């Protein structure tokens, strides 16, 4: 993605230079132009240098670390071999992917339909109020969210106790636990759902009435309009939103950590255990896991941008 951007930029710079040559300006003016160009670039130096130092080089050193033998410093695939040799590492990836997929699908589906409901509201004050509320909920995550769910659905949580005393329904006797997979799914959906509503709302408000009228005039039923016209237009936005949710929960650490204190086997928790451990620090395996995470997320982000670009065609951006 990055290299593509760089290529594109290089290509444009080259064509710009060719145009300059064709005009055959006097030498003095050309060098003045070049000086102005350098000055224009100099404004970008602090930001680009910052990104190099604190965004790109950490990635480089992680990839390098995953390919280096910790003892000798030579090239080695030991990190990846250890990743594949231990069943618990693969299990962590399996858990993380399953958790992200399930929460992205639940949050994506319910969130998209709810976004349509929100877009259809006539009262603008109500719509704005609900949008603000969704922004708050999407930002309410991490440790406080974990605690809120313990207070709600923990062993002595408000809803757990209420269900037990009013409906004689004991969730924990039925095998539910907020500290295990499906409990974690409920917690993650709390920040996934409002995020999906927020990111797909523009797509729903962008559906033009003319499209629907044209479809109906041409004999489409309401279901036919949805299936043949609206959904194909919305599809890229919905996929992009779901991909964003997937990346969002795949990298999430604080919520799961505060809830289960590291008792659930997810990749971010495992990496933290390896590099933040009090006993021993194992950067070799940690780097290999981190590269695995980045590889998967890079594919997700690539699909996200592709879909977003396709969606922007219909939104007149």
């Amino acid at each position: 993605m990055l290299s593509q951007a760089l290529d594109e930029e290089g290509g444009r710079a080259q064509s710009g230079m060719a145009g300059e040559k064709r005009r055959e300006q006097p030498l003095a003016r050309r060098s003045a132009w070049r000086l102005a160009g350098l000055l224009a670039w100099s404004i970008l130096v602090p930001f680009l240098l910052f990104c190099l130092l604190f965004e790109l080089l950490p990635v480089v050193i992680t990839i390098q670390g995953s390919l280096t033998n910790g003892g000798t410093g030579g090239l080695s695939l030991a990190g990846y071999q250890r990743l594949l040799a231990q069943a618990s590492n693969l299990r962590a990836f399996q858990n993380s992917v399953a958790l992200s997929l399930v929460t992205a699908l639940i949050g994506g589906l319910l969130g998209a339909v709810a976004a349509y409901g929100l877009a259809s509201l006539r009262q603008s004050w109500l719509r704005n109020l609900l949008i603000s509320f969704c922004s708050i909920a999407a930002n309410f995550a991490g440790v406080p969210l974990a605690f809120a769910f313990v207070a709600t659905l923990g062993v002595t949580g408000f809803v757990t106790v209420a269900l037990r005393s009013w409906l004689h329904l004991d969730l924990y006797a039925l095998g539910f636990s907020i500290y295990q997979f499906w409990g974690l799914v409920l917690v993650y959906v709390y920040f996934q759902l409002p995020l999906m509503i927020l990111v797909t709302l523009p797509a729903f408000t962008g559906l033009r009435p003319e499209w629907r009228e044209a479809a109906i005039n041409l004999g489409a039923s309401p279901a036919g309009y949805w299936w043949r016209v609206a959904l194909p237009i919305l599809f890229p936005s919905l996929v992009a939103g779901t991909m964003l949710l997937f990346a969002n929960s795949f990298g999430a650490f604080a919520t799961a950590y505060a809830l289960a204190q590291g008792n659930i086997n997810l990749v971010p928790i495992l990496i933290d255990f390896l590099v933040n451990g009090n006993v021993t620090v194992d950067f070799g395996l940690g780097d290999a896991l981190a590269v695995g995470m980045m590889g998967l997320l890079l594919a997700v982000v690539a699909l996200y941008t592709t879909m977003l670009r396709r969606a922007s065609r219909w939104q007149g951006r």
Partner: protein
Amino acid sequence: MRSLFRPRHRKPGQDVGQPSQHLANEGGLLPARLALALALLYLLIPLAATLVFGLSGSHGWGDLSSLGAVFGDPDFWQTLLTSLGLAAGTTVLVILLLTPTVYQVHLRLPQVQPLLEALALLPFAVPPIVLGTGLLQEYNGAATNSPLVDLLSLGLVPLLSNVFPLLDLPLLLICAYVIVALPFAYRAIDNSLRAVDVRVLTEAAASLGAGWWRTLLLVILPNIWPGILTAALLTFSTVMGELTLASLFNTYTFPIYLNMTGQNDPHRAALLAVLSFLLTLLCVLGMVPATRPRTGGGRAALPGQIEGAGPR
């Protein structure tokens, strides 16, 4: 700071999102509204339950002893102060780094736009736990000897590895937070710059004799302040709740205090969760005046276009 050039005025009655009366006679409205109600219920129940649970205390309803215990704890105030400092530092750095850069790219170097987009998108693929792992290895001095990184950084990494420990400030943590906040801070500032005609404003200012910095400070900034405010508040609220990097870098911040105290006492944890919610609420409410789009078809920083903010 009032601008001389304020060509676009907000039209009264123009709201977030387009008016969507045409949707009213479409099919499938009832299930959609039911889904919306269900979603809102799902978001409200834990909040209400947490409030009741926190206020009910360990000795029954209305027992506020845990609230007193929270406010009486010196660690509470100390970590809150640390986090406020970190959040303020990060916010200032994000705005200082991004605003001139994005303005210049809009004005003179549109060919750099794809690079900025890529840099602002990369943190989605590099979650905080991975970024922290990389930074820990990058700046731990001689322990990780990587000639490649030393070379690529023009010798700055070895230099900074020696400088960071000398200063008694969590500078590296602030730099890491800047990267974490980059995607949505960039999006907010970029959107607000798209909504104004940067070129016309700059040329008008230049014809009156203003230089580059003067134009940015006195002309552009007053026109894009809603975007800057949104970026600042999103950054602030993210840093206030961030746990992963602070724990990796051994900095005793507010979320770490929250996690440590809350594990022993669920009632106190619920109260702290309510306090954190109020903090988030304040930050988002601060954005509300900034989220109303200007006229002229430009894209203002709608909350719906702020993607993936917040600590996870």
